[in-house]
């Protein structure tokens, strides 16, 4: 709290690092399921980074109740906009993951393998 990096910088850097790890996983692996996992890791990393940008030093959740009065809210709440955006992004991420897994099932049904190398039909 007193020394070192601010907490949101740590979260921001961690999120971007996760996104980078996920991208490397997507690019290096040939198994479709591992590629899907790579996409979800990118997704999670970027969500962490976006939420981290909304942090205000010493802030708390933007819910006005006994712990946070209406007068204090402007000075003691974190930015609610990135949180609202990330709720959206999580749902879309889940939808994309479900679609990718459905395509993986179709790939396995058609080619009897999960390797992306089997999908050469539309390769140019």
């Amino acid at each position, binding site marked *: 709290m007193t020394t070192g990096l601010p907490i949101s910088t740590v979260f921001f850097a961690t999120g971007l690092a996760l996104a980078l790890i996920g991208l490397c996983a997507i690019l290096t692996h040939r198994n479709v399921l591992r590629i899907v996992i790579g996409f979800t890791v990118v997704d999670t990393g970027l969500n962490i980074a976006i939420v981290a940008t909304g942090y*205000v030093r010493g802030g708390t959740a933007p819910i*006005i109740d006994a712990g946070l009065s209406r007068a204090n*809210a402007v000075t003691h709440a974190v930015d*609610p906009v990135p949180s*609202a955006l990330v709720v959206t992004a*999580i749902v879309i991420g889940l939808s994309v993951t479900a679609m990718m897994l459905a395509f993986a099932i179709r790939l396995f049904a058609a080619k009897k393998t999960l390797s992306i190398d089997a999908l050469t039909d539309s390769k140019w």
Partner: protein
Amino acid sequence: MMRRLSVALIALLLALVFWRLVAGYSEQQTLRPLAVWYVTHAPLDFGVPNVVTGILIAWRGFDTLGEVAVLFMVAASVSMLAGVARGTPAAASGSPGEIVQVGAQVLLPLIVTFGAYVIVNGHLSAGGGFQGGAIVASGTMLARPHAALDVDAFGVAESVAGVLYVLAGVLGIVLAGGFLDPRFLPRGQFGAFFSAGAIPLISTLLGIKVGAELSVVIDRFRLADVARKPAPPSP
């Protein structure tokens, strides 16, 4: 070898971009003007304590409606892609075992109750339709291997909730300021369970819709038994 090199190059360049981002980032000391507006106007305009729910259901309500439309599209597409053969489910893959069965009997009411609690308290505390719907769908996942849940019932619940959601939006046009304006119901006492206009109502409809759609998606993946199914004709 060439591929490894290009992957390393891409990762390195992106790491450079991310490093610049992190180096240029500094923690906020005060709220941005937009956030100040939301934090002060959510209690004033809508009487909703949870500002995030206020943004999701009221100001960005149309966007949230589009979001559930995306979820519906995904449920439909997954049904088309994965769940081709209907009605030949779990019997072949066997019983899940006594531990799972008894555990589901004990846990399922608790999970569904907790999900409903999270959905209906979205305007007062952390939670809301999306979060509670996901909890309910996780309960479905636990129950599904043995209990014969009716997927068609989920479809009906999802459709009815969707129609009511749009009707609530139209009521907002007729009785209040615009589409999905939640102020057509009385604001009530700040922080009470029945308060914040129509926000709890819309949040509940959202929760039912999300829970039903995610349950359908989970169910479709369980039906997709590719091992014993002949390969579908290539399109």
